């Protein structure tokens, strides 16, 4: 049977870097050159927002796919995918502050507390930040079983990001609903593992 080996994974990683990094670089280049249509700010927010969500979903798809297709090596691309999801989300947030609000800090604070879609977005970003910071192998080893507990929060982030998207659109809920269905499906696929983890935690308590 065909098995992905280390070289395949390396190739896949190179491809992933190209597919994730280059569009982002090009996006900002076009925006700075005023080649992104009438309102580059909106294009940037939508591109980075959807990009972050896509990458997050892809990263969560890795482990069920690896398991079902018996391609253990595939798990190695989960971390870069997750980190790119975080990177896109970070650029999304920073662009919002720098180009949309244009550093009106007061407005930022009031928006975070006043607008439900902004605060769930903020919560999502906080979670992704914690996950990114604890994503290295050495930290994973140090944290032991706590690591898995922390990284299960990604499913909470999936929920808050879905809400963020759903609440951010003016009308036309079909696309956000499709994303939400996909997110629920992924959560469901992992449901057994999640509940097993939770049970184990409870028993220990």
């Amino acid at each position, binding site marked *: 049977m065909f098995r992905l080996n280390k070289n395949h994974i390396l190739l896949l990683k190179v491809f992933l870097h190209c597919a*994730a990094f280059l569009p982002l670089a090009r996006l900002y280049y076009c925006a700075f050159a005023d080649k992104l249509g009438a309102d580059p700010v909106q294009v940037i927010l939508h591109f980075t927002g959807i990009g972050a969500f896509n990458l997050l979903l892809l990263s969560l798809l890795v482990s069920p796919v690896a398991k079902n297709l018996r391609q253990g090596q595939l798990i190695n691309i989960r971390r870069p995918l997750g980190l790119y999801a975080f990177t896109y989300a970070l650029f999304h947030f920073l662009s919002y502050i720098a180009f949309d609000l244009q550093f009106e800090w007061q407005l930022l604070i009031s928006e975070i507390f006043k607008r439900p879609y902004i605060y769930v977005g903020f919560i999502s970003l906080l979670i992704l930040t914690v996950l990114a910071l604890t994503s290295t192998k050495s930290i994973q080893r140090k944290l032991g079983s706590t690591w898995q507990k922390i990284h299960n929060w990604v499913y909470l982030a999936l929920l808050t990001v879905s809400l963020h998207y759903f609440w951010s659109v003016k009308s036309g809920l079909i696309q956000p609903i499709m994303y939400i269905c996909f997110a629920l499906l992924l959560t469901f696929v992992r449901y057994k593992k999640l509940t097993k983890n939770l049970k184990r935690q409870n028993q220990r308590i």
Partner: protein
Amino acid sequence: MLIRTPKLSELKENQLTAQSVYSNRRNILKGLGYLGAGALLTGNKANAFNLFGTADKSPFKTRDLSFSQLTSEIDKQILTPDQKVISHNNFYEFGTGKSDPVEASQNFKVDPWTLKIDGLVEEPITLGYEDLYKAFDLEERIYRLRCVEAWSMVVPWIGFPLQKLLQKARPLSSAKYVAFETLYDPKQMPGQKSRFSGGGIDYPYVEGLRLDEASHPLTLMSVGLYGKTLPPQNGAPIRLVVPWKYGFKSIKSVVSIRLTDKMPPTTWNRLAPSEYGFYANVNPQVDHPRWSQGSERLITTGNLFNRNRVATKMFNGYEEVAPLYKDMDLTRYI
């Protein structure tokens, strides 16, 4: 009648640089990668980064209009560049993305056209395509258009005051409101074909004004912009422009103007009554649930580093309309 805009000296240099060339824009967008595109999972075409976009169609032909020009050279320099005005549109009949209308509307047929003015009037009127440009003297008006999404543009419209049209039709004394309707033609307007492509809106798009609002000298029926007839994405061949209200009140491609004695339904109000009222006056005091309305991004020339966030003014700066609402609590009547 011109809008109050910042003095030339207040504008930053990069807002005044020569207009950029955009013809290449769509190719650049197509060249961008796919990972960020909504198309990845859903094949949604409403995204500006539509990698699999259709080939560019031959653009809709506009022609020059003759009109009395009020624009001075200084006014011209603060305008939103015409390429931005005609490529960044909310016109859900042609798709919900900002760049969908320009791409999906180029074959839109505006000739023949019929605009009917009827209802509670002594003299119902029907205007054909040529009448739109000939029935009244055309004049240029530079207005700031303020979208409810907290961005704005400065547009040199060409048209005639709605007042003149209404006077000709002679409203009955029982007429209190004016109801407007956009063309309904799903064959030409892909957004009207299904809820999926048209943002969940129940078409045709309808709007309304109180008769005194409709009769205000600022209220314009526009047939052109930047010296030419309107392109389809901006509401060809004739649209309403009410500069002190949020952009969605300024209904496009109008086929019917009907005088009534009851407040007519309006599209966005029907869709989300708690978010959009009948009046929809620009009001920095009253936030939309999703956007603070205290400030806006004024779209001009210049790149991302343009500090274009400006304070939003009551009635979008057109304070002469305040008497229309003198006994009304505008935090309640949104």
